[in-house]
Each structure stands twice: as structure tokens, then as C-alpha cells.
């Protein structure tokens, strides 16, 4: 303890305090908000940025460039979680201080900033990345310098690392339950698969196709198409959809293309109250840009919707709006980003240490009962057990939750028979 005092107090007050040390037993009865209960030398053996009163973490997202549209919500959620954790006493008695870096929608920049956060700032954890491309760019950095990344986005799977906790869904968690649901309740047999042309939609559609053809009775894929990122013209494919009349349009289109696709779908006279459309890429965030009236009636398969009816979410939504404005909406990834700081806090306290190796080892089995989505638990493979839900878009930009799996769905980043 004495060692801790000497480190912290190089002021004229020091002598007086030392004189008062005799009265220490009485002092300990007073609240000591800035003094941690556990000595820093014990909880931090590898030189992370942890002091008696503070622990430094990093936030690494794009706030400029084309991805800022999507990543803004994640930054907001992570800051809210950090605020709330600090208000509740911090992590192991230490307040969280964050350093925010901008990945600028550029993958080499992400890697560079990740290195800065780990090597210069010695961050105990980093919450960040959004696209798979940015995650792939920082992964070697986190593994080389032994950092801890909490990654919020639903993604294609096929990855697992000691240094990453994936708080979003891997592909099978998002896809299979949704296809089963649409097959069972709508009797859907024929599917038209659409996607933007990059790894996530392609891998997801590959899993979807295997599931449709292998596991759904009479399931058939009648079309599969990809469009360059940023495409704004969909009239030709909409005509093809009209010609093939699939039971379900299965759409994994992202970014600005999304807006164009749904506006043109509506303009072409495809009525989503009659034509079933299932998507895994449109959250409440995207609907803001698309316009609720253009997508009302579509189904989305996610693990979280802002309209979820449970006590955790009823506290989370107002807290988020209080911090970031009444008009903000909360999508699936925003909620997953919110889980990151909380899961890290719970893991650190379970491990009794900030050390990366101990946090990584303690992660499996950590459960967060206050999750807005209800309840999550970290699996041995560093992904989350969580429920899959189907929502139906309303004209006001929110979803009605119409189905959820009875149990938590096991994360399976390397699904057998789907590759």
C-alpha cells in the first residue's frame, strides 16, 4: 500500500498525509473513490496503461470517410457503456479513460492506429472496427502486440482469435434460424439471393444456399446476384425478380446501394406486404436513410431490435437517447458495440486482472445479464451465445419483433457442411 501512496502523491500534501498515516484505520472507514482496492502491481503485470485510479482503453472506428455512416452508432454505444460503467464505480475500482482514434474508412490507417493504441498508449482493451476488411487489417497487430479487441459487427465467420471477442453474430447465427422461420411460417420454397459484391454477402449467401438446398423441404434458389458496392441502379434485377416470382427475396445489400434498391423496388410496384423479403443487412440505422415508407413490410433477421420488450432494453433505449438525442435510432450493431465494454469489465473482474492473457482465458463463460438483447454469454470460441430474432419493418422506421428462437443459438464460426 505504501508503495502505491508514494507513486501517487508527489505534493506538499505528502508529508501531512504521511503524518496522518497513524490514523489510517480510521481513514479506511471513509469512502475512497479514487483508490483502488486491489494494488495495481497485482492486476497489471504486463505494463498496460492502468493506474490506481484509471485504466485506459481505445475506441477505433471510422468517424470520417464512407464508413462513418455505419460506425457512428457504434462509437456512441461504446461511449455510453463506458459512461455507465464509470458511474457504477469503474472496473476493479478504476475509472475508464478512453482514447479515440479515427480509422478514416481506410484499412491501413486502422492497422496503424491499432498499433498506436497498443504500443504507445498501452490500452488495456480496444473497442472497434466495423467492416471485415478493417478487422482483418488490425488482426495481426493485435496478435503481435497482444491486445484485446471487442468487435461489434455481424460478420461472415471463418475466424477465431485469442485476441478478439466477437460481440456480433457470425453468419450461421444470423442466417439459418431466419430461413427456417420463413420456410415454416410462409411455406417459402423458392429464394432469390441478392448481395453487394464483397466477402460478407458472398459468404452469407453461400451458407444460405447450402441451407436452402440441403435442409429446407423443396427449397430452391432461383437466382443469385451481386452488385458492385455503391451501385445505384437495380431496375434490371427487379425485372428478373418479377419474372422468376420467388417466394422470398433474400437481400444482403449494404451502404448507399440499400437506399437505391428499396426505393426502386417500391417504385417498380413490388408490394412488400405481399412479396416476402428477408434481409440481414438492414437495421434501424439503415432505415433512417432508406425511409420507412419504402421498406415497410420487409422482414429482417437480427439479434436485436430497438423495439425489443424487456427491462434491460427499456432502460437502455432512453439512456442512449438521453446521451445522443431523441432522434437517434439503435440498430443491431450499435447494441453489439454496447456489449463490448460491459463484457470486458465483467471479464476483467472475473479474472481479477487487466492482463490480456488472463482476460482472454477468463472470457469463455462470462455472462452479461444486463444486455439490451436480453442475455448473452461468451463461448469458448470467443463469439457470443445469443438469440436470433425476426422483425418486420414498420413505416415509422422501427421493427415489430415477430419471432425469436426459444434458446440461445450456439456460435459456430467454422460451420461444417456449409463451406
Amino acid at each position: 500500500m505504501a508503495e502505491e501512496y508514494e507513486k501517487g502523491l508527489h505534493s506538499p500534501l505528502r508529508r501531512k498525509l504521511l503524518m496522518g498515516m497513524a490514523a489510517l484505520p480510521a481513514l479506511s472507514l471513509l469512502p475512497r473513490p479514487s483508490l483502488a482496492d486491489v494494488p495495481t502491481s497485482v492486476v497489471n503485470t504486463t505494463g498496460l496503461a492502468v493506474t490506481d485510479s484509471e485504466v485506459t482503453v481505445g475506441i477505433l472506428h471510422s468517424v470520417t470517410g464512407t464508413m462513418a455512416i455505419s460506425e457512428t452508432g457504434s462509437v456512441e454505444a461504446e461511449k455510453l457503456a463506458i459512461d455507465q460503467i464509470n458511474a457504477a464505480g469503474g472496473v476493479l475500482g478504476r475509472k475508464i479513460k478512453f482514447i479515440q482514434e479515427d480509422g478514416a474508412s481506410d484499412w491501413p490507417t486502422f492497422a496503424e492506429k491499432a498499433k498506436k493504441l497498443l504500443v504507445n498508449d498501452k490500452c488495456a482493451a480496444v473497442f472497434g472496427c466495423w467492416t471485415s476488411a478493417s478487422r482483418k487489417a488490425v488482426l495481426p497487430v493485435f496478435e503481435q502486440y497482444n491486445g484485446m479487441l471487442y468487435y461489434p459487427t455481424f460478420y461472415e465467420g471463418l475466424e477465431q482469435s485469442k485476441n478478439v471477442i466477437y460481440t456480433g453474430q457470425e453468419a450461421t447465427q444470423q442466417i439459418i434460424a431466419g430461413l427456417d422461420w420463413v420456410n415454416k411460417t410462409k411455406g417459402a420454397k423458392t429464394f432469390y439471393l441478392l448481395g453487394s459484391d464483397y466477402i460478407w454477402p458472398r459468404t452469407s449467401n453461400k451458407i444460405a444456399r447450402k441451407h436452402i438446398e440441403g435442409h429446407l423441404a423443396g427449397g430452391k434458389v432461383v437466382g443469385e446476384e451481386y452488385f458492385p458496392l455503391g451501385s445505384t441502379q437495380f431496375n434490371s434485377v427487379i425485372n428478373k425478380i418479377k419474372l422468376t416470382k420467388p417466394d422470398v427475396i433474400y437481400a444482403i445489400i449494404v451502404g448507399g446501394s440499400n437506399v437505391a434498391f428499396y426505393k426502386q423496388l417500391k417504385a417498380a410496384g413490388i408490394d412488400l406486404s405481399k412479396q416476402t423479403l428477408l434481409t440481414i443487412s438492414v437495421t434501424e440505422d439503415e432505415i433512417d436513410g432508406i425511409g420507412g415508407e419504402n421498406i415497410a413490410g420487409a422482414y429482417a433477421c437480427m439479434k436485436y431490435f430497438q423495439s425489443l420488450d424487456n427491462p434491460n432494453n427499456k432502460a437502455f433505449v432512453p439512456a442512449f437517447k438521453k446521451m445522443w438525442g431523441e432522434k437517434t435510432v439503435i440498430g443491431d450493431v450499435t447494441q453489439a458495440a454496447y456489449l463490448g465494454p460491459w463484457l470486458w469489465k465483467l471479464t476483467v473482474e472475473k479474472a481479477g486482472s487487466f492482463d490480456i492473457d488472463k482476460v482472454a482465458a477468463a472470457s469463455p463463460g462470462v455472462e452479461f445479464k444486463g444486455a439490451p438483447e436480453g442475455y448473452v454469454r461468451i463461448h469458448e470460441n470467443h463469439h457470443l451465445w445469443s438469440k436470433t430474432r425476426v422483425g418486420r419493418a414498420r413505416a415509422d422506421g422501427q421493427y415489430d419483433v415477430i419471432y425469436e428462437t426459444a434458446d440461445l443459438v450456439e456460435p459456430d464460426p467454422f460451420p461444417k457442411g456449409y463451406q
Partner: protein
Amino acid sequence: MFGDYSISDLSSIFVMQGFAGLILFSVFVLMALGLAIIFGQMGVINMAHGEFMILGAYVTWMTSNFFQSHLPSLFAGYFFVAMILAFLASGALGMLVEWGLIRHLYKRPLDTLLATWGLSLILQQTYRSVFGAREVGVELPEWMMGSENLTDTIQIPINGMFVMGLTVLITIAVAYIMFKSRWGRQVRAVVQNRVMAGAVGINTEKVDRYTFALGCGIAGIAGSAFTMIGSTGPTAGQLYIVDTFLVVVFGGAASLLGTIASAFTISQAQSTLEFFLSGSMAKVLTLLAIVGILMLRPQGLFAIKVRK
């Protein structure tokens, strides 16, 4: 591929596909007209063209919000007001940019490329700071959404027809201004021989400024119209810039007719290929064909002979 379908199904699809091609054609022409004036007539490579379009889109969004909260009874007609405002806003910004930036670089055409690219980054970040990083949704009046049913099986998108009508109007207006009006004659005179034009008493600086502003204003109208079919966000302008340059360069930089012909060729090729192949492959093949043709005919489809 078509064995399973009835003749009536197929014929209505072909009609709709024809319209899809025409709509794409109008979109291309509308995108490219402003640039055809700036790049074609003035030789300025304006990389910020997309951002001028997005300014128009944001003006439309603001107008829509204003009408919703203050004049809900007139909401059905707000779009026309929005387009005029978009033209004025983008045109005014264009005039400012020409005065502050472009006019110093007329003798260094390659530097305008860098300068306007920098300008596009500045504008993107400005939009992000002012309007937020997220996309905004522009609400349309009821009559502009949905489709017109020609028969039971043929549906034509109303917003597509609106874009087509608008394109025809603006093309006629531009053609009139450039080829029939006194001011258009001055513009063409300056393009052909700046020194002589100055010598016969044309205020070339003023002509430059208004030409640039006209091009930017048309970009603003295009941006306003595209809120019907695309997204409005700080970087959405980037979605259009490649196609826009493609159309203008392929058509032959200095020719309005070339721009129209090239927009027609590219749009028909692309929408037909998209129907028979997938979206990505259609784009690849279209680009390959354009590269091939430009190698054989570097001056583009139509070129005007100009005394250098």
C-alpha cells in the same frame, strides 16, 4: 432460360426492361450534362461534381423538412421548389469556387484535377459536420412514389418517368442556351479562341464564371432528382462521379450530342447485360467495351474540330 415462362410474361418483362434502360439513360444524361458543360466546354476536370450533386440533394432534404413542418398543405408540390433551390444553391457555390479556385488554374488543367479533388474532400467533411455522418431520408410526396400500371403485368416506376421528363426538359434548355442564345454564342467563342473572343469585346472572365455556375447548378438539379432513386449522405456523390466521367469522356468531351449518344449506348449495354448476366459482370463487360473503344477512338464517339 425462358423456356418456363409464358409469352405474355416475357413480353411484359421486355417492355419493362426497355423502360429500365430508358430510365438508366435519363439518369446518365442528367448526371453528365453539368459535367459536359464544365469539362467539355471549359476543359476543367471537376472531381467535385458529385459533391455539387449532393448539395442539391441536401437542399431537397431541407426543403422537404421545411414544407412538412411549416406548409404541410403544399407538400405535394415541394419537389419543384426544391429543384429550383438546388439549382440556385449549387450554382452559387459553383460561382464561388470558380472565383476562389478554378480561375487561377485555367492554364494548368492537370492542377484543377488535384484542386477539385481536394475540394470534394473538403465538401464531404463539411456535409458530415453540418448534416451528420448518417444518411438522411428524403420523404417524397405520395404521388411520386409507386408505379403506373399500363396493363396487369406491366408496371412503370413513376419516379423513373419523372426523371425522364426532367432530363428531356433540361437537355432542351441546355441545347437552347448553348446553341441559340447570345450568351451561348459567347461561351462557344471563348472555348474556340479565348484571346480573339476577348479582343472582340466578350468579357471572358464573366462567361467562365457563369458557365461553371450553370454546370454546377445542373448538377444540383440532378442531385435533387436522384433523392428519388438513391441515397443522400456525405459521400453519396462518389457513387456517381465515375459513371459521370465515363459518359462524358466516352461521348467526346466537347460535344453535347456525344454525351447523349454515349449515355444511350452505355445505359442500354449495361441494362441489357444486367438482365442476362449478374450485376457485377455487366459492369465489368461494359467497362471493358468502353476501354476497348476508347483505345481505338481516343477522342470519344463525337469530337468537334477545334483550332488549338
